[in-house]
C-alpha cells in the first residue's frame, strides 16, 4: 500500500472504515455462512422469520434455530456476533414455539431441561476429574509431551481403581467378612516357629509373618466352596475375577486404541506433509515456561534444519563402513547387557532359593536381593543403553525409537527371567508332589496320621516324618481348635527327609510368587522415589545453589538439571503395570497397592517436574491420539498374561493353601461348579459345547470370520488408497483443465488475429489465476482509496486524458513510450485553450482544467502525492501501450489480450461478476507496486474509477433501498465489461473500419471511437428517454467538436455514464443484454457506416460477459447463457469460496456507497 492510500484512509471516518474492514474479514473467514446464510448476517436475518403459519414449517424452522443454538460455538466468530445470533435464534424459537402444539412445547421444555442438567453434570464431572488442574498446570509449563505422561498415568490410575474394586469387592471383602477368621485354619495360621518373628520389621519387610498370612496373598483364601450365610462361592469368584482382570484390561485398552485411531487420520498418509507439520504444527501453545519455550524453539529449529538438510542431500555417505561397524558394536553391547541382566536375575533368584533352603536365618539383604537387583537393573540399564546409542550416530528420532525398543526388551526380559525363575522353583516344588501320587491316597496312612486335636502341628509332623521317611509324604489332619465339626484335610508333602522339619509347612508357591511380585513393586517404588529425590531434586539443588561457587557452569555443563525423559518414564509406568498384571492373580491386593503407588507417583513426579526438571531436549511428541504408549501397554499386557495363564494351566495348585487347594488344576473349579451347582441339562450342554464336535467347527468359523474381515479391510484400504489418488489427480487435473479452458478461450475468438504478445497473455492468465483469492484488506483499501471530494474531477480527467492519449498515440505511433509522452504533453498544451472557452464554465471548468493539467504531466512525473492523478495516469497508459506495440496490429493484440482476461474468469465460476470484481480489484495492488508502467494496470484502474461513481447514482436517483449494493455491484461490473468491451471495440473498429462521423477527422479517430464505444455501452444501459436525449446531445457535440474531439468524448462518456446509472438495474440489464436494442442505439453513435461484421463480432463478447454476470445474480434469468455457463457448472468446487468472496465484495461496495454520498453533488454539477 502506498502512502496515497494511507492518506485516503485517514480522511475517512474511522468507524465506518473499521466496519467495512471487519465485515470483509468476517466474510472471508466464515466458511459457515454459505451453509446457513440466514444466521450469519444481519440483513438476511429477516428472511428467516417464517411468515407462514404451517406448523410443520414452523417446527422445522424452530428445529433449525435450535440447531444453530447448539452448534453456534463451533463458529469462528467473535463473541458479540455469536451472542447476537444466539439471541435472535432464541427469540424466534420463543416466538414461534408457543404457536405449536402443546406436546411439542413440552418436548422442547423437556429437552431444554435435559440440556441444562447435562451441562450441570458435565460441570460436576469436570470438577471430579482427578488432578485436572495439576496436569493443566504442567501442560501449560512444559507442553503436551510432558503432560501426556501424566495423562497416561491418570488413565492407568483409573484402570487400577477398577481392578482393585473388582478384586476388593468380589474377593477380599467376602473373604474378610464371611470367610473363616484368622487363625482358624491351618492356612490362616502362622506356624509356631515363625510366630516370634512374625512382627519383626525385617519379616514384615519381606512380606512374611502376619502379612504372609493375610488377604494380601493367595494362600490365605479358604477353599470352602460356599462361605457365609448367602453361600458365596469364593473359589469360583477368585478364579473368575482373576480372569476378569485380564479381560477388562484387554477390553479397555483395545477400546481406547480404537478410539484413538479413529481420532487420528494420520496413520495412512504420515509422511506427506513433513514440512508443513514441522512449521504449522511445530509450536506447542501450551508452553508457558521460558526455559521450556527456549528448548522447544531450539528443537523446532533443529527439526526444520534437519528436514532441509535431508531434503538437500538425501544421502549421506560419511564413512559408511565405520558407521556400520559402530552400530554393530553397539548392538552387540546392548545384547550383551540384556543377556547379562537376564542372567543376573536368574542367578539371583536361584541363589536366594538355595540360601533359603540352606541357611536358617536370612539377612535383610538376602531376603530382598532379588527385587533390589531387578530394580537396579531397570534403573541403570536404560542409561547404559543411552550411552551406547551415542555410538550409533542415528538420527535422534531413530535413536529414540531404538532406545525405547531396547528398554522395553530389557524390562520384559527382567520380568520374564524373574517369573521363569520363580516358576522354575514352583516346578521343583510340584514335581515332588507328582512323584508320590499313590501314597497320599492311602487310607491307612490317612487314618494313622490323625493327630490329637489339642496337639501342636509341628510336633505331629516331626513324629510322623520319623516313621514315614520313605514315603516322603505326610498326611496331616488339622482339627479346628474350638469346634470339631469342621474337618479339613490338607495335604502336605516334603521334598527330602533331611529338610522335613523346615520346608514342610508352607510351600505355597502362589503366595510365594505373589510375595515376590509385591516385593518387586515396593522396591521399585522406593527406587523411583529415591531416584527422583536424588537424581532430580538434590541435583537440582546442587546445580541451583552451587553454580556460583564452582569453576564451571553447573547449569549448562556437567550436572545440569535433570531432564524429564518422557519416553523412559512412560515405559517405566508400563513396566510397573506389567508387574501388577503378572501378580494380580496371586496377590489380589496388588492393584489396590498400585493405586496408592500411582497416587504417590503422581504427586511426587508432578512436584519434581515443576520444581527441578527441564523438558527433554529431544521432545518426544506423544499426543493423546497417539497409540504408541497404548500399543506398548497392550504388548506388555499380553506378555504378562502369558506366564500367569501358563502357571494356572500348567501347575497344580498348592495342596494345603488357597482357594483351589485339593484340586488337580486351578481351572477345575469351573467344571466342578458346572457339574455340581448347575442343573443337569446345563452340564450336558456344556459338555456338548466343549466337545471337539462343537469347538473345532467354532474355531474354523472364527478363522473364516477373521479371514473375511481381513479381506474386507484389505479391500477397503485399497479403495481408500485409490480414492486418495483419485482425489489428488483430480485436484491437479482440475487446475490444469481450468488453465486449458482459459487458454482455449484465448485462442478461439481471435483465430484471425496474430498472436503477437503471447508472453503477455500467458502473463495475464497466470496472474489472474494467481489472484483468485482476494485479500480483504486490499479490497477494502482499493475502494477506500478515492476520496469523495475529488471524485468528480478524477472521473473527468480520466476520460479526458484517455482520449487525449489516444489521439496522441495515433498521431505519434511511436514504438517507445517516452516520445509519446513528450508529444502528448505538447498536444495537451495545445488543447487547453481550445477547450476552456468552448465547453466549460464556472467551477466545473476550473475543475477540469486542473485535472487536465495533472493529466498532462502524468506519464513522466507521475505525481505520487496526488491522488486523482493516479487513476488518470493509468488511464493514459492504456492507449499508450498499444502505441508502444506499434500500429494497428497492436490494437488487435490488445484485443486479444483484453477479453481473454475477462473470459477466463467467466469460465472459472458461476459468479463471474464476483470474479470480475475481484480480479479487477486485486490486480492493481500487484502491479502498482511492481511495475507501474505495465499495461494491465489500466484494467483495475477502471474499477477504481467507477466504483465511487456508481454509488453516487444510487443515492441520488434510486429509490430502491433493498438492493443498492447489489445493483451497485452489477453496475460496477458492467463498467468493467464496458471497459473490456471498449477495448474490444476499439481494436476491432480501429482495424476494420472507421465510423463515418470520425472519418473526416485525422488520426485520433480510432481511439475516439474507442471512447465512444464506451459511451455506447453505457448508453445501452440507458432508458429510451435518456437515449433520445443522449443522441441529440451527442449529435450536437459532434457538430461542435470538430476541432476538439477528445473533449467531446470524455464529456459524453461521463454524461452517459451518469444517465445510464439513473435507470433501475433491471432495465439496465435488459438493455445490455439484448443485442437488438444495442443495435438500435448504436447507429446514433457509430453511424450507418459501421459494418455489420464488426458488430457481430463485438456483440457476442459483450453478451457473453453480461450473461455470465446475470447468471450469477439471482433475480434475472438470462436467455443468452451459452456454453460458458455450462462449463461453469462443472466447477462447483470453487463456488463456495467464490460466493463468499463475492459477498465480501458486495459488502465493500456497500460501504463505499455510504462514504460517497457526500460527493454526489459534486459530480452532478460538473457533468450535467
Amino acid at each position: 500500500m502506498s502512502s496515497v492510500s494511507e492518506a485516503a484512509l485517514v480522511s475517512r471516518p474511522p468507524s465506518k472504515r473499521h466496519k467495512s474492514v471487519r465485515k470483509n474479514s468476517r466474510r472471508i473467514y466464515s466458511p459457515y455462512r454459505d451453509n446457513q446464510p440466514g444466521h450469519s448476517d444481519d440483513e438476511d436475518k429477516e428472511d428467516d422469520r417464517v411468515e407462514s403459519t404451517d406448523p410443520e414449517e414452523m417446527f422445522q424452522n424452530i428445529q433449525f434455530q435450535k440447531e444453530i443454538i447448539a452448534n453456534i460455538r463451533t463458529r469462528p466468530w467473535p463473541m458479540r456476533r455469536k451472542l447476537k445470533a444466539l439471541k435472535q435464534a432464541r427469540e424466534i424459537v420463543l416466538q414461534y414455539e408457543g404457536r405449536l402444539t402443546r406436546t411439542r412445547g413440552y418436548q422442547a421444555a423437556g429437552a431444554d431441561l435435559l440440556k441444562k442438567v447435562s451441562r450441570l453434570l458435565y460441570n460436576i464431572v469436570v470438577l471430579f476429574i482427578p488432578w485436572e488442574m495439576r496436569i493443566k498446570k504442567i501442560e501449560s509449563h512444559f507442553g503436551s509431551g510432558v503432560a501426556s505422561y501424566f495423562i497416561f498415568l491418570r488413565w492407568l490410575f483409573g484402570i487400577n481403581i477398577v481392578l482393585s474394586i473388582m478384586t476388593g469387592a468380589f474377593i477380599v471383602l467376602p473373604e474378610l467378612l464371611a470367610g473363616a477368621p484368622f487363625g482358624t485354619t491351618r492356612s490362616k495360621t502362622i506356624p509356631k516357629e515363625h510366630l516370634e518373628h512374625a512382627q519383626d520389621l525385617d519379616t514384615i519387610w519381606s512380606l512374611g509373618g502376619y502379612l504372609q498370612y493375610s488377604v494380601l496373598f493367595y494362600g490365605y483364601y479358604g477353599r470352602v466352596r460356599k462361605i457365609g450365610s448367602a453361600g458365596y462361592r469364593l473359589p469360583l469368584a477368585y478364579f473368575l475375577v482373576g480372569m476378569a482382570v485380564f479381560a477388562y484390561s484387554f477390553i479397555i485398552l483395545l477400546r481406547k486404541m480404537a478410539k484413538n485411531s479413529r481420532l487420528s487420520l494420520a496413520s495412512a498418509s504420515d509422511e506427506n506433509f513433513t514440512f508443513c507439520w514441522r512449521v504449522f504444527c511445530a509450536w506447542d501453545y501450551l508452553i508457558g515456561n521460558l526455559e521450556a519455550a527456549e528448548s522447544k524453539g531450539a528443537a523446532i529449529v533443529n527439526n526444520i534444519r534437519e528436514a532441509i538438510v535431508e531434503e538437500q542431500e538425501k544421502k549421506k555417505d560419511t564413512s559408511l563402513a565405520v558407521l556400520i561397524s559402530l552400530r554393530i558394536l553397539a548392538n552387540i553391547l546392548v545384547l550383551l547387557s540384556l543377556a547379562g541382566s537376564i542372567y543376573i536375575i536368574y542367578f539371583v533368584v536361584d541363589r536366594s532359593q538355595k540360601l533359603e533352603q540352606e541357611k536358617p536365618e536370612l539377612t535383610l539383604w538376602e531376603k530382598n536381593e532379588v527385587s533390589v537387583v531387578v530394580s537396579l537393573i531397570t534403573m541403570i540399564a536404560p542409561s547404559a543403553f543411552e550411552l551406547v546409542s551415542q555410538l550409533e550416530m542415528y538420527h535422534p528420532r531413530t535413536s529414540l525409537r531404538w532406545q525405547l525398543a531396547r528398554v522395553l526388551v530389557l524390562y520384559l526380559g527382567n520380568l520374564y527371567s524373574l517369573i521363569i525363575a520363580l516358576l522354575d522353583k514352583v516346578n521343583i516344588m510340584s514335581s515332588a508332589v507328582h512323584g508320590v501320587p499313590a501314597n497320599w491316597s492311602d487310607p491307612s496312612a490317612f487314618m494313622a496320621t490323625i493327630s490329637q486335636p489339642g496337639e501342636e502341628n509341628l510336633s505331629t509332623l516331626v513324629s510322623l516324618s520319623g516313621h514315614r521317611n520313605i514315603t516322603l509324604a505326610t498326611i496331616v489332619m488339622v482339627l479346628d481348635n474350638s469346634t470339631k465339626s469342621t474337618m479339613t484335610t490338607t495335604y502336605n508333602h516334603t521334598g527330602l527327609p533331611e529338610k522335613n522339619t523346615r520346608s514342610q509347612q508352607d510351600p505355597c508357591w502362589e503366595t510365594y510368587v505373589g510375595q515376590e511380585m509385591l516385593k518387586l513393586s515396593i522396591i521399585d517404588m522406593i527406587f523411583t522415589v529415591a531416584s527422583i529425590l536424588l537424581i532430580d531434586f538434590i541435583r537440582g539443588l546442587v546445580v541451583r545453589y552451587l553454580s556460583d561457587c564452582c569453576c564451571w557452569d553447573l547449569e549448562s555443563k556437567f550436572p545440569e538439571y535433570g531432564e524429564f525423559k518422557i519416553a523412559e518414564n512412560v515405559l517405566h509406568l508400563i513396566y510397573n503395570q506389567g508387574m501388577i498384571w503378572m501378580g494380580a492373580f496371586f496377590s489380589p491386593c496388588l492393584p489396590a497397592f498400585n493405586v496408592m503407588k500411582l497416587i504417590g507417583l503422581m504427586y511426587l513426579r508432578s512436584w519434581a517436574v515443576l520444581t527441578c526438571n527441564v523438558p527433554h531436549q529431544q521432545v518426544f511428541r506423544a499426543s493423546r491420539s497417539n497409540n504408541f504408549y497404548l500399543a506398548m501397554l497392550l504388548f506388555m499386557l499380553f506378555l504378562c498374561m502369558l506366564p500367569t495363564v501358563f502357571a494356572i494351566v500348567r501347575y497344580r495348585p498348592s495342596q494345603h493353601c488357597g482357594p483351589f487347594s485339593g484340586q488337580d488344576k486351578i481351572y477345575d473349579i469351573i467344571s466342578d461348579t458346572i457339574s455340581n451347582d448347575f442343573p443337569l441339562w446345563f452340564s450336558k450342554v456344556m459338555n456338548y459345547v466343549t466337545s471337539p464336535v462343537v469347538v473345532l467347527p467354532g474355531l474354523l468359523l472364527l478363522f473364516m470370520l477373521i479371514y473375511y474381515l481381513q479381506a474386507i479391510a484389505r479391500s477397503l484400504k485399497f479403495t481408500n488408497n485409490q480414492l486418495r489418488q483419485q482425489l489428488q489427480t483430480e485436484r491437479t487435473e482440475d487446475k490444469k483443465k481450468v488453465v486449458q479452458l482459459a487458454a482455449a478461450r484465448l485462442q478461439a475468438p481471435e483465430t484471425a488475429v496474430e498472436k503477437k504478445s503471447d508472453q503477455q497473455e500467458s502473463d495475464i492468465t497466470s496472474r489472474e489465476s494467481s489472484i483468485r483469492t482476494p485479500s480483504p484488506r486490499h479490497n477494502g483499501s482499493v475502494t477506500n482509496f478515492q476520496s469523495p471530494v475529488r471524485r468528480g474531477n478524477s472521473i473527468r480527467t480520466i476520460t479526458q486524458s484517455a482520449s487525449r492519449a489516444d489521439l496522441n498515440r495515433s498521431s505519434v505511433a511511436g514504438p517507445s513510450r517516452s516520445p509519446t509522452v513528450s508529444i502528448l504533453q505538447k498536444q495537451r498544451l495545445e488543447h487547453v485553450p481550445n477547450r476552456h472557452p468552448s465547453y466549460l464554465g464556472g467551477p466545473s471548468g476550473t475543475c477540469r482544467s486542473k485535472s487536465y493539467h495533472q493529466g498532462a504531466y502524468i506519464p513522466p512525473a507521475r505525481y505520487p502525492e496526488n491522488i486523482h492523478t493516479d487513476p488518470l495516469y493509468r488511464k493514459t497508459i492504456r492507449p499508450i501501450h498499444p502505441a508502444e506495440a506499434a500500429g494497428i496490429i497492436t490494437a488487435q493484440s490488445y484485443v486479444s489480450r483484453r477479453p481473454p482476461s475477462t473470459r477466463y474468469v467467466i469460465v472459472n465460476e458461476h459468479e463471474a461478476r464476483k470474479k470480475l470484481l475481484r480480479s479487477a480489484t486485486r490486480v492493481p495492488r500487484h502491479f502498482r507496486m511492481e511495475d507501474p508502467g505495465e499495461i494491465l494496470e489500466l484494467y483495475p484502474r477502471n474499477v477504481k474509477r467507477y466504483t465511487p461513481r456508481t454509488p453516487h447514482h444510487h443515492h441520488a436517483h434510486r429509490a430502491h433501498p433493498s438492493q443498492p449494493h447489489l445493483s451497485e455491484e452489477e453496475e460496477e461490473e458492467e463498467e468493467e465489461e464496458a471497459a473490456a468491451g471498449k477495448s474490444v471495440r476499439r481494436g476491432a473498429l480501429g482495424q476494420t473500419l472507421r465510423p463515418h462521423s470520425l472519418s473526416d477527422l485525422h488520426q485520433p479517430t480510432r481511439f475516439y471511437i474507442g471512447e465512444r464505444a464506451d459511451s455506447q455501452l453505457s448508453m445501452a444501459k440507458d432508458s429510451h428517454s435518456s437515449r433520445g436525449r443522449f443522441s441529440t446531445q451527442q449529435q450536437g457535440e459532434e457538430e461542435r467538436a470538430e476541432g476538439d474531439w477528445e473533449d467531446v468524448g470524455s464529456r459524453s462518456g461521463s454524461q452517459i455514464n451518469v444517465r445510464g446509472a439513473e435507470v433501475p438495474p433491471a432495465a439496465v440489464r435488459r438493455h445490455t443484454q439484448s443485442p437488438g436494442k444495442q443495435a438500435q442505439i448504436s447507429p446514433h453513435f457509430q453511424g450507418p457506416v459501421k459494418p455489420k461484421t464488426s458488430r457481430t463480432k463485438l456483440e457476442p463478447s459483450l453478451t457473453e460477459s453480461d450473461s455470465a454476470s446475470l447468471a450469477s445474480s439471482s433475480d434475472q434469468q438470462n436467455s443468452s447463457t451459452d456454453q460458458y455457463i455450462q462449463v461453469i457448472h462443472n466447477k462447483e468446487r470453487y463456488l463456495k469460496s467464490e460466493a463468499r468472496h463475492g459477498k465480501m465484495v458486495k459488502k465493500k461496495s456497500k460501504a463505499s456507497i455510504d462514504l460517497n454520498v457526500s460527493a454526489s453533488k459534486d459530480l452532478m454539477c460538473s457533468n450535467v
Partner: protein
Amino acid sequence: MGTTASQLRKDVLSEYQELTFLTKQEILLAHKRFCELLSKEERNHSNSRVPMDKILTIPELKSNPFRKRICQVFSTSDIKDGSLTFEDFLDLLSAFSDSATLEIKSHYAFRIFDFDDDGTLDGGDLEKLVNCLTGETDETRLTPEEMRQLINNILEESDIDKDGTVNLSEFQHVISRSPDFVSSFKIVL
C-alpha cells in the same frame, strides 16, 4: 477476587457456556484472571479493554512466539491494537480449549499465521512464521537459502491448486492430517 467472580451474572454465564467450549469453572477462572489485568475502576465496566501488552504478561502467553498475532486475531478492537475485551478473551480461550474442534482450531491457526490478514498464506507469511518459530538471533535464524528451500517445500506439499499461496482449505487439509495439532494447539489457564 470472590466478588469479581460473582460479577458474572448467571444468564451471561450460561450464555458464555453456550457459546464457548469452556466449562463454568473455566469461565469463572478466566474472568478472575481477566479482572486481575484490569485496574480497579475498569472492573466495573462491562466491556473494558485490556491492552495487548498487558494481555501478553500472562504466563500462558508470555513465551508464545505468536502472542501478538493471537491478540490481534482475537481482538475486536476498532483500531486493531490487539486489545481484548473479556468476550474476546473468552473467544481466545474457547478456541484454544481442550474440546474445541479441529476445524475451529485450524481456522484460528490459519488466521494467526496469516500475518498480513489477506486470507492466504503466501511466501511472506510463511517467512514470518518461520522466523517467529526460530527466533531472531543469528544462529537460530535460517539463512535465506534455507528459507527459500523451506518455503518451496511447504508450498509443494500443501499448495494443492498451485497458486503460490496456501489458502484456508488447503491449510485445514494439511492440519487435519497432523496427529498432534489438536493436542498442542491449546492454551489453558
